[in-house]
């Protein structure tokens, strides 16, 4: 039931009194409203912009966030309003939905942000009104295609465990995956070109003996051309068979357009072999040679543009059909008219209506060969009308086809551009990540300085703490805590990227003893740059004994390599004393700090690394830690 109509429900119920005298049975009891509240205004504060509406308006849709009791979670007692920290512009559409019962999609809004807002407020996008639904669907489709393109690019990365067949298929489909595939791609392309050129040159007249007429090269050098043809066809056959073998679904492959083109390209040769020089069928044999020209369509595997053209023509089938139909109509009309107009004149070329078709087509397409021209005045008048209308009729559907082609072409261009942009984007992110991680390490060292100094010289802390903002220091504090809490037999700490990457593949997780007062054991430390740091040198925590440790999260693929990073996070709730925050420092700068145990914890970041640099402070963790602490901007 639409929202606005809900306001009419009392009317509909009242009108039901019209049935009462007619009814034979008693009516059921009406539902009573337990606490009939007076309708009141409620204030919705969305990021500072206040919207006000009646409570009843929101109650129209009880299965959304605003219509149900879920909004109570957002109620602010002091200001007596509901506060939502969302985009106020999109909220406007959402609220209008309650008011009018129609959900509109604003054109300037980004589709994914709009979707997110709808999902947040519990509204399904399918109820978008007709006026905006098409636009919404178009944008959504574009977005989905974009995402799919991105995913496809990701899939290009080599997966282990692919059967030989699958590797071959992938090599055929994406030539740039391996060198062999590229070689194969170019070789086939070369042979297609050779084959086509051969077919063309075959018919060129090649010099002749003095008393013989000119013969085409094909007949002069029969053997050579035959060998060339054989070679090409053999290559194509081998390629086709290999593709057939590698195809995941052979039936579907055989039905695909490209494979049909392949078959048509090589079939004439075999048919020609089978049929020997039989006089009866030599005519048919000659016809078959025409089909050899289809080999040129094999180039469409090599050319993106050609594929797009084919796809465009397919998708514009209805416009092409219309064009054809209207042309046919016009041709028939004008041909008839011309025929009857020219009937009177003698030696007229317009012998029949089908004969006039040729004139009409040539005139409408403004070719004007001049082999047939009207001689009578009426014929000339109608001929000129014919040519004028031809221009119009042909010009009308063509822009539709052109725009379709351009849309598809641009989409493809966009895919390529996105791929290029993605590389740049990833590079940027990597730089920022390393920047922030080094910032953390840097500040950690400074922090050590800070805290150590704080123990001794309290007033100094103001001076030194200016180097990092409050946010950064809080963030770093958190990382410190993290380091602190993971008690282990091995030293763990945040390390920079190279060590991380090196040890990533060998990393594992140990289950740590709940308490290890002395982190002396260093088995299995194999990293180079990290070993230096991983040497522990700290005294046990003064209050280590009193700690309660939470059980670590274990990494599913535990390797025994005992390298530092990629550990779990032990949350040490009680390690809040000043001394426990002291870190171990590097060897060259020993400080008088009572450092506790340090362990690394790599905090995983979900795969689209779009968080702030502070959030990207650590190198991403192993694949299993997808749900571990996401350190976004703290």
């Amino acid at each position: 039931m639409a929202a606005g109509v809900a306001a009419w429900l009392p009317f509909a119920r009242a009108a039901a009194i019209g049935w009462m005298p007619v009814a034979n049975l008693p009516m059921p009891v009406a539902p009573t409203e337990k606490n009939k509240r007076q309708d009141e205004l409620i204030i919705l504060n969305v990021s500072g912009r206040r919207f006000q509406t009646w409570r009843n308006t929101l109650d129209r849709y009880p299965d959304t966030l605003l219509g149900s009791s879920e909004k109570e979670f957002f109620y602010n007692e002091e200001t007596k309003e509901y506060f939502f920290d969302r985009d106020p512009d999109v909220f406007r559409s959402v609220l209008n939905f309650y008011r009018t019962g129609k959900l509109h999609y604003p054109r300037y809004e980004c589709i994914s942000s709009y979707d997110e807002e709808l999902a947040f407020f519990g509204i399904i996008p399918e109820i978008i009104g007709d006026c905006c639904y098409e636009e919404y669907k178009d944008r959504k489709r574009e977005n989905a295609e974009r995402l799919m393109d991105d995913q496809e690019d990701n899939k290009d990365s080599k997966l282990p465990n692919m059967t030989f067949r699958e590797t071959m298929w992938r090599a055929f489909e994406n030539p740039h995956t391996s060198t062999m595939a590229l070689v194969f791609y170019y070789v086939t392309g070369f042979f297609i070109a050779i084959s086509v050129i051969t077919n063309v040159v075959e018919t060129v007249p090649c010099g002749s003996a003095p008393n013989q007429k000119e013969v085409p090269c094909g007949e002069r050098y029969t053997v050579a051309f035959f060998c060339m043809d054989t070679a090409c066809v053999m290559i194509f056959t081998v390629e086709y068979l290999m593709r057939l073998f590698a195809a995941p679904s052979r039936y579907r492959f055989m039905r695909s357009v490209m494979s049909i083109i392949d078959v048509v390209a090589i079939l004439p040769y075999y048919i020609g072999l089978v049929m020997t020089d039989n006089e009866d069928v030599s005519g048919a044999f000659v016809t078959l040679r025409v089909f050899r020209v289809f080999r040129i369509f094999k180039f469409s595997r090599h050319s993106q543009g050609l594929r797009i053209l084919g796809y465009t023509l397919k998708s514009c089938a209805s416009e092409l059909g219309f064009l054809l139909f209207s042309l046919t109509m016009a041709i028939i009309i004008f041909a008839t008219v011309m025929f009857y107009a020219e009937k009177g004149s003698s030696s007229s070329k317009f012998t029949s209506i089908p004969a006039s078709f040729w004139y009409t087509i040539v005139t409408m397409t403004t070719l004007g060969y001049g082999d047939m021209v009207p001689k009578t005045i009426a014929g000339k008048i109608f001929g000129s009308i014919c040519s004028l209308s031809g221009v119009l009729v042909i010009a009308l559907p063509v822009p539709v086809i052109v725009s379709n082609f351009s849309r598809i072409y641009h989409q493809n261009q966009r895919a390529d551009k996105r791929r290029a942009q993605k590389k740049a984007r990833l590079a940027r992110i990597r730089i920022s990540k390393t920047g922030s991680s080094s910032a953390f390490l840097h500040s950690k060292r400074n922090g050590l300085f800070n805290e150590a100094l704080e123990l001794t010289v309290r007033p100094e802390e103001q001076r030194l703490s200016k180097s990092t903002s409050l946010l950064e220091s809080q963030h770093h504090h958190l990382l410190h805590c993290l380091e602190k809490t993971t008690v282990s037999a091995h030293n763990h700490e945040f390390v920079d990227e190279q060590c991380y990457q090196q040890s990533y593949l060998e990393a594992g997780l140990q289950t740590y003893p709940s308490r290890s007062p002395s982190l002396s054991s260093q088995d299995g430390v194999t990293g180079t740059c990290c070993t230096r740091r991983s040497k522990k040198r700290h005294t046990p925590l003064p209050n280590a004994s009193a700690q309660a440790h939470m059980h670590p999260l274990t990494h599913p693929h535990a390797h025994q390599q005992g390298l530092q990073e990629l550990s779990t996070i032990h949350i040490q709730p009680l390690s809040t004393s000043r001394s426990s925050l002291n870190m171990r420092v590097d060897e060259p700068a020993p400080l008088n700090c009572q450092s506790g145990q340090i362990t690394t914890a790599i905090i995983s970041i979900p795969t689209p690394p779009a968080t702030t640099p502070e959030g990207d402070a650590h190198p991403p963790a192993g694949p299993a830690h997808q749900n571990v602490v996401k350190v976004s901007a703290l």
Partner: protein
Amino acid sequence: MLYFLGYPQNGHRRGVRARLMRLFPCSTAKKPSASNQNSVEDELELSAVRHRPEGLEQLEAQTRFSRKELQILYRGFKNECPSGVVNEDTFKDIYAQFFPQGDASTYAHFLFNAFDTDHNGSVSFEDFVMGLSILLRGTVQEKLNWAFNLYDINKDGYITKEEMLDIMKAIYDMMGKCTYPVLKEETPRQHVEIFFQKMDKNKDGVVTIDEFIDCCQNDENIMRSMHLFENVI
């Protein structure tokens, strides 16, 4: 051809065109311009139909609703019909939304006629509120009167069997096809028979208002159901 020569000014338009048209002997010059005028005015009228209801105090006095209730009613009314009046198609649409499984248009038509007391083809807010006032806050007598008015399609003071059959069919149409037990063709007719047996005391084939009210007042079920929707607003 006039356009090729340049479009003359508004003031001259009719004059020039009329003059040109007079040159052609069999032109129907008068009619197009007249109808043009009419259609233009019609269009203006349609778009300018914007009814503003009487003041709140007046409505308060005329109906039995409180001020707040009138406010709520008007807000809902205006939301659905921004122009201030409901025409029959909109009325049918709105009513049909409450009965999705059947066809409520016939009954809505009768209902529209019952609400449109001045029979001008549209239900304004006053009509709406007056009707509702009777239905929700009226005495039983008034309600029964209203129901009689609804059934009496041609408003001649008698309910005939044909009128009742129409009404009954309309009501059954609202049920739609997917009912249990399945509705048969005969059901409305049978129902009308039952109704007439009950209501038509003097068996003259029609039901008058007095017969109707008497009979209803003697029927417990009907009396009880009259009070059913009292607290709807």
